[in-house]
C-alpha cells in the first residue's frame, strides 16, 4: 500500500478493514483479469454479481436497501482499490452505486426503493444513468422531454456516452418535464417499448466497461416511476458530486499502479551500466508521482470527513476530481515514459491506465469545466457561457 503520509492512521478500524478487504479482492479477483477484460471490450456480466456479493454496490446506503451503511471515507477506500485494477471496473461500481442507486434512494418513493435497490445492490440487476446528450458539458441544454399523459409519462429524446446502457435492466433518465420547465428523473425499465440502447464501438479507453446511447421513442412509463424528490437539474448534479468524490479516490489507486510499475521497472532496467532508477531525470518522475499521490490521498480523505459531516461543497469536490485525476493521468504518462518501449505494450498496465484516464479526465465534468467551477468560486464570475 502506497501511503507516505500514513493516512491509514487517520482511518477508523472499519475503514481500514474495508480498504484491506477490497485490496485483497482486487488483488485476487481483478488484477489477474483486468487486461483480458480490456482486450475483450467488456468485463463479464457476472462481475456485477461478484461486486454485489462483496458489498461494493451502493455500500453507503442503509442495510434495508442492500447497502452496508459505510462511511464516505470507507467508500472512497473501496473505489481506490477497484481503480487500482482498472478505471472501467471502478466505473461499474460508481455508476451503479452513486448514479443509479443514489438517486433512487435519495429522490425515489419507498415503492421504487424497495422494487429496485436490493436487486441493484446484489448485482442481479444492472443500472445506467442517462444525463449526457449532444449538449455535452452543458446539461441545461437538455432536449429529452417527458410529457404527462394520464397515469404515465411519455419520454422522447436521446442520450449519449452512457456507461452500461447496452447491458442495463433499468435506466435513470433525466428529462425536461413539459409544462414544468424543469428537469425530472425517471426510472425506466429497459424493456419498455420504445427504449433502445445501441452500443458505442471503437473505444480506446475504458474498454472494460461498455458504453452506449439511449434512444427513447415515445417511451411510456408509469407516473409512479418518477423520482418525486428530484426537481430540477440540481438533483442529477448532486449524484454526480457523489460519484466525483469516489473518482477522486479511484484516480489515486490508478496512480499507485503507475508509480509501482515504474518504480519496479526503473530499479531493474540497466542502461549505460546503471539502473535507470539511479538517474535524476527518472527519480524526478517518480518523486512527482509520489508527491501527487501523497497530497491527493490527504485531499480525498479530508473530503470524505467533510462528506460524513454533511459539510461537503461542490467546489471542494471539483478541486479533488480535477487535480487527482490529472495527477493520475500525468503519472501514467510519466510511467509510460520510464518504461520506454515496454510501456506501450499490454505486458504492463500503464498504457491501459493512461488510456482509461483520458476518459476519467473528461467524464463527470471535464478537467476544464471543474477549473471553471473553481474560477467561479474564486471570482464570483461565471465563465461557462
Amino acid at each position, binding site marked *: 500500500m502506497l501511503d507516505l503520509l500514513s493516512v491509514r492512521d487517520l482511518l477508523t478500524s*472499519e475503514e481500514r*478493514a*474495508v480498504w484491506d478487504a*477490497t485490496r485483497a479482492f482486487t488483488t485476487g479477483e481483478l488484477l489477474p483479469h483486468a487486461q483480458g477484460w480490456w482486450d475483450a471490450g467488456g468485463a463479464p456480466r457476472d462481475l456485477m454479481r461478484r461486486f454485489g456479493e462483496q458489498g461494493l454496490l451502493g455500500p453507503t446506503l442503509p442495510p434495508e436497501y442492500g447497502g452496508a451503511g459505510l462511511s464516505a471515507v470507507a467508500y472512497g477506500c*473501496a473505489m481506490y482499490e477497484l481503480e487500482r485494477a482498472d478505471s472501467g471496473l471502478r466505473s461499474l461500481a460508481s455508476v451503479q452505486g452513486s448514479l443509479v442507486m443514489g438517486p433512487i434512494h435519495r429522490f425515489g418513493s419507498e415503492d421504487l426503493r424497495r422494487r429496485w435497490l436490493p436487486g441493484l445492490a446484489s448485482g442481479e440487476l444492472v443500472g445506467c444513468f442517462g444525463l449526457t446528450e449532444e449538449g455535452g458539458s452543458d446539461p441545461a441544454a437538455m432536449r429529452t422531454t417527458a410529457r404527462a399523459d394520464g397515469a404515465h409519462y411519455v419520454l422522447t429524446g436521446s442520450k449519449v456516452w452512457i456507461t452500461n446502457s447496452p447491458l442495463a435492466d433499468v435506466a435513470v433518465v433525466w428529462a425536461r418535464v413539459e409544462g414544468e420547465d424543469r428537469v425530472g428523473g425517471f426510472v425506466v425499465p429497459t424493456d419498455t417499448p420504445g427504449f433502445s440502447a445501441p452500443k458505442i464501438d471503437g473505444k480506446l479507453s475504458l474498454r472494460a466497461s461498455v458504453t452506449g446511447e439511449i434512444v427513447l421513442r415515445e417511451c411510456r412509463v408509469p407516473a409512479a416511476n418518477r423520482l418525486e424528490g428530484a426537481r430540477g437539474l440540481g438533483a442529477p448534479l448532486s449524484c454526480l458530486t457523489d460519484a466525483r468524490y469516489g473518482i477522486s479516490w479511484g484516480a489515486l489507486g490508478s496512480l499507485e499502479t503507475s508509480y509501482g510499475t515504474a518504480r519496479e521497472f526503473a*530499479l531493474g532496467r540497466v542502461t549505460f551500466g546503471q539502473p535507470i532508477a539511479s538517474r535524476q531525470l527518472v527519480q524526478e518522475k517518480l518523486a512527482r508521482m509520489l508527491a501527487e499521490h501523497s497530497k491527493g490521498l490527504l485531499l480525498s480523505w479530508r473530503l470524505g470527513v467533510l462528506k460524513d459531516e454533511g459539510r461537503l461543497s461542490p467546489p471542494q469536490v471539483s478541486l479533488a476530481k480535477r487535480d487527482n485525476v490529472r495527477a493520475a493521468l500525468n503519472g501514467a504518462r510519466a510511467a509510460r515514459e520510464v518504461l520506454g518501449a515496454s510501456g506501450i505494450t499490454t505486458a504492463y498496465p500503464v498504457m491501459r491506465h493512461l488510456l482509461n484516464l483520458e476518459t476519467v479526465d473528461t467524464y463527470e465534468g471535464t478537467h476544464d469545466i471543474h477549473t471553471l467551477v473553481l474560477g467561479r468560486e474564486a471570482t464570483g464570475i461565471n465563465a461557462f457561457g
Partner: protein
Amino acid sequence: MKILTLIRQVPDAEARVRVTNGAVDLEGATLVMDGMDEYGVEQALRLREGGADAEIVALAVGPRRNEDALRTALAMGADRAVHVETDAVLDPISLSKVVARIAQTEGIDLVLVGGQQADWDSQALGAATAERLGWPQLTWTNGLQVQDGALTGRHDVDEGNETFTATLPAVVTTQQGLNEPRYPTLPNIMKAKKKELRKDTLDQYGVTPLVRVVGAEIQARARMNRVIDGKDPQAAAAQLLELLRNEAKVIA
C-alpha cells in the same frame, strides 16, 4: 462445539520494513492477518457451514493494533473475539500457555493455529499448546472435517499425504492449500462492529516472555540488475541457464 482460532498480525507481503535500534520497525507498514490464520478462520467457518453446530472464537495476543486483525476475523464470520492486549513479544512456548488457558476456560473443542507463524517461523505453538492440554495435535493439515464428534482429515508427511481420524478436543495447525479464505464483505465488516471483543491483560494469565529479542537485521540481497533480451527465446533460455549455473551457482 467451540472452536478457537488464533490470529496473528504480520506486515503484508508488499510492506518494506526497516530496522531501528535493533528491532523491526513496523511504523508505516500495513499489518494484516497472517495468511496461515486466515486458513484457520476459514476452516472453522467451513466446519460450521458443513453442519457442525459451532461457536467460533478468535483470539489474539499482542498490541492494541491486533484489534484490526480480530475485526477481520469477526467480519469473516467468527462469533466473538478475545484480545489479550500486551506490548510484550511472546515466544511460542509462553504464548502457548495463554492459548491453553483460554482453551480450558472457554471449554474449547478444537484449536486452530497457523502452521508456521509468519513472523517467528517456529512451528512450535501448536505443539506446545497440545502438549500443555494433553490433546492430540495434527499438523500441516490440508483437509479437515468433523463427523460424529471426531475429526477426519488429511495432512502432509515427508512421503506424501496421510488421512487421519482423531478424537476431540484437538489442536490442528493449518497450511497453505487447506482452503481458499473468503474476503470479508463490506456489510459483514460493518456488522462485525457489533460483535463482542473482550479485552484481557497478560497479567491475568501470569505469563512473562522466556525469550527476548535483542537485535534484528534485514537480509538484503543485491539485485544483479541483468535483463535478458527475450527476442530470441532459445538464446535467452541458454543465457539464463548459463547465468544460473556459472554466476549465481544455484544449479549444477
